[in-house]
């Protein structure tokens, strides 16, 4: 499903360059639950951004569902992010002026789905994360756990086969963190591929495979 071959990412600022990823090769199969771990600056987030088609590698080949990502245009990458990949961020990244309902509706709008389909899907997702009663509340009116559940519902809006979670419990108390992890586990059991970046060994232990990075390379 996901195949990375010799992925390198170099950031250049003026005359200086920083090699964030050094020839990473990795295969992630369908319905895997994988954690990516490593110290700060090891390249976890960079790798996550490349897998999530938010960034492109400097060298190497990324094949997603038999498609070479390097050949895709900006809008084609956007379509991949919209339909194939759901994002859950540490700081939720919800639109502050939009309600829970509107935040979840956004990927459906970008996919061009009609009003009725959108209403049905948003209702279904809000019920699934237990926030239907909170649908008209803005992020600032929700707790951290609730906000992350809204973010999870948004990530699932177009029913993507891959879910990328960058420190999904990083800003949550342990109870809310456990709730999010329960949902992620449930989603994995439904057949989705879950790729999670975390510092936390306890959280990582919920996944079925751990990839450790150090200094831009896979060490185990």
């Amino acid at each position, binding site marked *: 499903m996901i195949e990375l071959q010799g992925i390198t990412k170099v950031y250049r600022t003026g005359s200086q360059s920083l090699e964030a990823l050094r020839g990473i090769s990795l295969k992630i199969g369908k319905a895997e639950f994988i954690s990516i771990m490593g110290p700060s600056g090891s390249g976890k987030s960079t790798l996550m*951004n490349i897998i*999530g088609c*938010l*960034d492109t590698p400097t060298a190497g080949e990324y094949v997603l569902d038999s498609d070479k990502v390097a050949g895709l245009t*900006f*809008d084609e990458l*956007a*379509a991949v*992010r*919209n*339909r194939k990949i759901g*994002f859950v*961020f540490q700081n939720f*990244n*919800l*639109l502050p*002026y*939009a309600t829970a309902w*509107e935040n979840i*509706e*956004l*990927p459906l*709008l*970008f*996919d061009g789905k009609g009003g009725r389909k959108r209403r049905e899907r948003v209702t279904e997702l809000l019920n699934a994360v237990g926030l239907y009663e909170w649908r008209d509340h803005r992020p600032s009116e929700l707790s951290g756990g609730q906000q992350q559940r809204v973010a999870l519902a*948004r*990530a699932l809006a*177009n029913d993507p086969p891959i879910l990328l979670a960058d420190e999904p419990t990083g800003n949550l108390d342990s109870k809310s963190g456990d709730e999010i992890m329960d949902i992620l586990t449930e989603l994995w059991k439904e057949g989705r591929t879950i790729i999670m970046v975390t510092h936390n060994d306890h959280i990582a232990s919920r996944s079925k495979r751990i990839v450790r990075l150090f200094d831009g390379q896979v060490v185990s």
Partner: protein
Amino acid sequence: MNLTLPHFFWSEYRKRRKKASLITFALFWGTLSTLLLMAFGQGMSTQSQVAFSGLGETLIMVYGGQTSLEFEGLPKGRRIWLYSEDIDYLKERIPEIMRIAPESYNFWQVSAEGKEINRTVHGTTAEFAVMRTQIPQLGGRFINPDDDREGRKVAFIGWKVAQDLFGTKGAVGRTIIVNRVPFTVIGVLQKKIQDSMYNGPDADQIYLPFRSFRQIDNQRYIDQIHIQPWNVGQSKLIEARVRMLLGRKDRFDPNDRYATSFWNTIENNKEGQAIFKGIEIFLGIIGGLTLLIGAVGVTNLMYAVAKERTKEIGIKLAIGARRRVIVQQFFLETMFVFAKGTFWGFIIAFNIVHLVRLAPINYDSFGIEAYLLRPEFSLQVFAAYMAILGLLVFFSGIFPALRASRSNPIESLRYE
């Protein structure tokens, strides 16, 4: 609810209320001034057309003259007169002529009911009415072919003549004495604006049937000939043919510019209209520049919005927004700012134009106010304004929108 519409714009817009209010005012003022300047420009153009048509519709006037070239052994300096026979002579030989009428005039004493005035009295035929926009007031008429054929003693008079002789009493049916001969008034000229004339405005003139005029006037020649072509594009051709035919008949060189002269109102009108069109465009540009100041403000506002919403753009890009979605959103927001600013400018301009148009025009002293008091809010003005506005909306919105749509999703997501 469609979130690609300017849904969150209000919150951002409210944050910049003070700046936004100034921009809204600039757009309001720009719209008001653009529309008013264009409406007044168009009104002046139309009024000039109306005033010009007060003299006549698509008219060529022919006058006699004096030769300036020797021709077939004849010396230069010969007087060339026009005669009533020339009317049929020209009409028969120039098929491009739709209407033709003779005109002779003399300055005579005219009296009625104990009042005496001195006015120019004209002799002409029925066709003159249409060519020279001699529209009678209700209950009256202009000279008809029977009046002319039978040499009836009837007169069509200007409204000022009617006022001077009869005051507020109806003039039709009353008798006036022209050069000691009684004539019955059959019609009074309707009020009109007229900025081009000879022998003064038509309001001060008296018209008699051509035959009747000749009976009290002892001149053999006529003063001028009025010609109306079938096609306005043929006016220069008609001029050339008249020169050629009269030259053949009266033996002068057709290239002699002084043997006959022309007042070609069709050509004059073209020049006049071009000048007024130029004024209209100039006024539109002045107004458009005012609007441009507001548009620059909108561009700045949209750049600020784009910058402050970097994170929001990053989130949208991360969850699958295509570039056109971002562009569309910024464009719609730009349109919203413009709509808010221009709406009241549009409404107020419309009402000012409407109110000004209600002001009466004084036909007795036709002056500059006749041009200024009839601004026009025409389809042409509206279309021109919309074209200017469309361009400004496009250029105000496109650059901030493109910049926003080209954001890097990761950098945008990191923006705080």
